[in-house]
């Protein structure tokens, strides 16, 4: 670490001050024999300091693989084959997580970037008390005594609004509900003050009222601590609640990126428009006879990442498709202030 501090990284200049994380042209492939599943195929994402970037997409769109690439936790045979993941450390230096040695990566996980997962029921070790697990995390990254670590663990539980924190420290995960466990997971993730929290569908397994509480909590913590959040979800309702900026992913690529208001006000990609139309709306979704409610699914399925269509990956399902879309892949082009769209025909939307 000392060598890095004395010699400023040549990357430092390349990242604007207010940006915490920027993935540039990231390609993550799963290579099996001759075939490569291009799960992440040229993704560029920017997370600003103190803001939340939501990455939205259906199953198989590559959103989770993107987050695992950033954490460098890809399971074999997944590999980052191209691209940069620039990250600004708390001391101001910029590192490329895509090529950082595993040893330094380990120091970043937990302390700089923390991650929470979808399954609050199984993300905690059933053999240790909640306090034990938070204390382990604190003492792993900071040289503090057991007593001090316990004090900090209690404060963390109080921070995530767990009542009777002192008592809860000595309880095992099975003695807690799902929402409570997700709070503990957040406490665990935040126990070393990470600058960036990656949350991979943290509310998906929770019922809606608990989901709202957790989102509230994350918003409040972001305001109080000033951390940035990369929020992975398939739920546009959650996006509206928590995000500042949204990136919509489809078949391993970002198809649209925009500030949250702009995206909801006027989506500039047919896929985003289709996703928004999927949200049931009793006013809009009346059948012709005015009585029955209909859902509006997007026809078709996400193409296999082993066999992507040559042109626009969304072309086979797109209502606006024209011959050009099937031969040529559109690039990500400006479609408004801070608004990017990967569609030839975004003006029509």
């Amino acid at each position: 670490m000392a060598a890095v501090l004395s010699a400023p990284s040549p990357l430092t200049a390349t990242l604007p001050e207010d940006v915490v994380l920027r993935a540039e042209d990231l390609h993550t492939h799963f290579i099996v024999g001759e075939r490569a599943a291009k799960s992440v195929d040229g993704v560029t994402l920017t997370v600003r300091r103190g803001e939340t970037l939501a990455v939205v997409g259906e199953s198989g769109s590559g959103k989770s693989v993107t987050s695992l690439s950033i954490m460098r936790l890809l399971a074999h045979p997944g590999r980052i084959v191209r691209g940069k993941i620039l990250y600004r450390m708390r001391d101001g230096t910029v590192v490329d997580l895509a090529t950082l040695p595993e040893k330094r990566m380990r120091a970043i996980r937990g302390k700089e970037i923390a991650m929470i997962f979808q399954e609050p029921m199984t993300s905690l070790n059933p053999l240790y008390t909640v306090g034990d697990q938070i204390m382990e995390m604190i003492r792993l990254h900071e040289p503090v005594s057991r007593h001090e670590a316990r004090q900090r663990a209690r404060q963390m539980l109080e921070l995530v609004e767990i009542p009777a924190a002192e008592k809860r420290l000595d309880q095992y995960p099975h003695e807690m509900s799902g929402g409570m466990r997700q709070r503990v997971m957040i406490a665990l993730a935040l126990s070393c003050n990470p600058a960036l929290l990656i949350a991979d569908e943290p509310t998906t397994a929770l019922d809606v009222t608990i989901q709202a509480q957790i989102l509230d909590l994350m918003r409040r913590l972001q305001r109080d601590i000033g951390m940035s959040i990369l929020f992975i979800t398939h739920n546009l309702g959650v996006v509206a609640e928590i995000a500042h900026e949204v990136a919509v992913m489809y078949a391993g690529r970002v198809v649209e990126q925009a500030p949250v208001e702009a995206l909801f006000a006027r989506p500039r990609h047919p896929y985003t428009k289709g996703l928004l139309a999927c949200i049931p709306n009793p006013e809009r979704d009346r059948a012709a006879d005015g009585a029955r409610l209909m859902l509006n699914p997007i026809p078709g399925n996400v193409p296999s990442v082993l066999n992507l269509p040559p042109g626009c990956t969304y072309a086979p399902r797109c209502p606006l498709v024209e011959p050009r879309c099937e031969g040529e892949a559109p690039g990500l082009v400006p479609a408004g202030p801070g608004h990017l769209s990967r569609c030839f025909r975004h003006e029509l939307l």
Partner: protein
Amino acid sequence: MAAVSIAPAPRITTLILQRKTLAIGLAVILAIALFALLAPLIAPYAPNKLSIVNRLKPPSGTYFFGTDEFGRDIFSRTIYAGRLSLTVGAAATVFAGVIGITLGLVAGFFRRADTVIARIVDAMMAFPDILLAIALVAALGPSLATVIVALGIVYAPRLARIVRASTLVIRELPYVEAARALGVPTWRIMTRHVLRNLVSPILVQATFIFAYAMLAEASLSFLGVGVSPEIPTWGTMIASGRQYVGQADWMTIFPGVAIILSVLSLQLVGDGLRDLLDPRLRKDL
């Protein structure tokens, strides 16, 4: 899930006493261990005290288990031999544990090491235990230490295999991934998160290995490739009694019974522990 009133955990002694086989096995093996430990206090004669006048005497009030061809007291020798047999069994188990657990964890965690370790383990398991032990002792030169090392090597693959299989399962669990995402180093995940989960299968297997190792030590000594014949172990005692079968059966019967009792009781303990530590087999949960 929340607010289920949980009955206080039953005491460990209650749990053991509820299981007859476990309780009996533990009682027997503890008794044997106690005899061995207190041998100098219990044994009426020194194990190597010769008394040619009293050679090949049948069991009696003076010599509970009779005497051997040199007039040495079989009862005293059986008790003293227990010290060695138990020590060899325990030491071989610990040795097998250290090697087997390490190999299993490494194989379970690192793909590259796995291909090598798994093949070696399979190859070693393909050899009959005793044959492999004999070969190892022959290679290392017979002594007490080599018998322990050889038996440790012979039984390590059993533990390695169990540990590897469970490691492969546990390392994919969400909480291990979560720990990794929060920067917990691999060795800590191995010991704190994986090994801790394996305590019960390892404990059960170690009990069985203890029994096998004692049996194997007796076999090696009987075959004359184990510890030197002057040192009383149950195996050497049976070996020297072999020539007097029919004439002085007590020379083989009593050390034989000692082997049977200790191996049987250890097997009972192993079975009992397996039931006790496996929540699916516990009726009181």
